[in-house]
């Protein structure tokens, strides 16, 4: 099996703004491997280092030490991002552009041909149900519509690997279901999906494998069944792994 997303002894230390204070260590030697064609859930409590890992993979934050690669290419090279799609945790898009113009702009960044661009834009607008709003500036969109623009832009280059940071947070139940459906469909097409989530129920149903990080360290990695073995469910296993002691009184 080939790893299309890999980190080796990844360490990230955020330098603090004040001179004398020590930096904040967000990742301590994280080793991660995601294989082609799998849906991989990236779990961990708040502040565990999930977003930081993604920030390194996307080249936003340089690693303090260690390495990370996508498709075997070091993430410091922009070309490593040619075949990926990314949906940030919280983002707004150029408000003065329309959804169609935004997608066209990103298509140019990927160097897509004109005909290919037209075809992809039409199918994506349909997929996220924004056809009727496509010619309105994003300024006029609701939050859910903006999220859907985000999903559409992450798919503009027909990526082989999707990196999604909490793709379902802030969506209504219908929106969540739609996102899950899209992830399923991508999997059927043989794509790889790497996403972080706090929704363990959702993770149980769609992930082939999961990793649990805590305080910047990998606590467990494997199939949902493998990790839950010996526990009532994934949630119990998760709580145990991050060191939560159930209150004996209750």
């Amino acid at each position, binding site marked *: 099996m080939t790893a299309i997303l890999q980190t080796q002894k990844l360490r990230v230390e*955020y*330098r603090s703004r004040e001179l004398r204070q020590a930096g904040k260590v967000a990742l301590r030697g994280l080793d991660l491997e995601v294989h082609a064609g799998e849906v991989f859930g990236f779990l961990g409590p708040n502040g565990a280092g999930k*977003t*930081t890992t*993604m*920030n390194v993979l*996307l*080249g*936003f*934050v*340089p690693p303090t030490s260690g390495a990370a690669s996508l498709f075997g290419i070091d993430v410091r090279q*922009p*070309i*490593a*991002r*040619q075949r*990926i799609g*990314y949906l*940030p*945790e*919280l*983002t*707004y*898009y*150029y*408000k*003065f*552009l329309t959804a169609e*113009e935004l997608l066209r*702009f*990103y298509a*140019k*960044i*990927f*160097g897509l041909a004109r005909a290919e661009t037209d075809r992809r834009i039409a199918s994506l607008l349909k997929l996220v149900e924004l056809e009727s709003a496509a010619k309105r*500036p994003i300024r006029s969109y609701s939050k859910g519509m903006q999220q859907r623009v*985000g999903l559409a*832009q*992450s798919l503009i*280059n027909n990526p082989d690997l999707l*990196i999604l*940071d909490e793709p379902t947070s802030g969506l209504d139940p219908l929106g969540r279901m739609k996102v899950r459906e899209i992830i399923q469909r991508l999997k059927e097409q043989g794509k790889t999906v790497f996403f972080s989530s706090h929704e363990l129920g959702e993770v149980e149903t769609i992930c082939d494998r999961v990793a649990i990080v805590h305080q910047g360290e990998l606590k467990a990695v494997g199939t949902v069944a493998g990790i839950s073995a010996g526990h009532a469910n994934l949630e119990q296993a998760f709580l145990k792994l991050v060191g939560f002691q159930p209150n004996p009184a209750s």
Partner: protein
Amino acid sequence: MSKIFALAGVVIRELYRRKDFYVLFVLTALLTLAAGAVNFFHDDKIVRYVKDICLLLIWVSALVIAIVTTARQIPAEREARTIFPLLAKPVSRAQVIAGKFLGCWLASGVALVVFYFFFAVITGSKEHLWPWAVYLEAGWMQWAMLAIVIAMVLLGSIYFAAPSSTSTISLIVVVGILLLGTHLKVIALQQPEPLQSILTAAYFFMPHLEWYDLRDFVVYDMGRVPVRAVALATVYAAVWTWIFLLLAWLGFRRKNLTT
């Protein structure tokens, strides 16, 4: 290269969809028109005076548009978090800098064309003189100067996150150079020693924006500047622009951008 043009396209599109720039643009055009409406009575002094005012207006407007637009580019991308989906695409930070520069520079070029066109039509209709080559040279030199200014502001915007401080500092520096640039060497000679060397060094190591000010050539009908001088000035501007863009890239390259 097409990525850089795509980035520049977004800059330009934002500009023409923002209302505040229209205001400045229309205001300058209107003031130029109003100045043109003054009855000249064929008095040379008044003619020059009005032309001088119009050109000053064009200079101030173009500088303000260039500086304010440029100063907000990268901070706005970070503030609105649009930088993240952008950099997650196969685009390097050098290309982002280049695209932002190109967009701002092209936009200021369009503004200059419109301003000079107005100026030419108004003075031409009064004086029946159409020195296009002189205008072209003056406009080109001003545009070359704006390239240096825009690159410099882009560099500033990497270090000062607030666009307002970048704009203010840039405006002070640019106006300072424009007003004092030529005199600095003379001023230096009148100073006591440590200051004299510092000012002399500053004279040699600063971008001489004031060389690009050909307003007097236009106002006093002094004819044209030799093409060789314009070419040299263009090269000089290109070198300074390149230096500032390089420094901006060095600052931006390793910057932590956290979502």
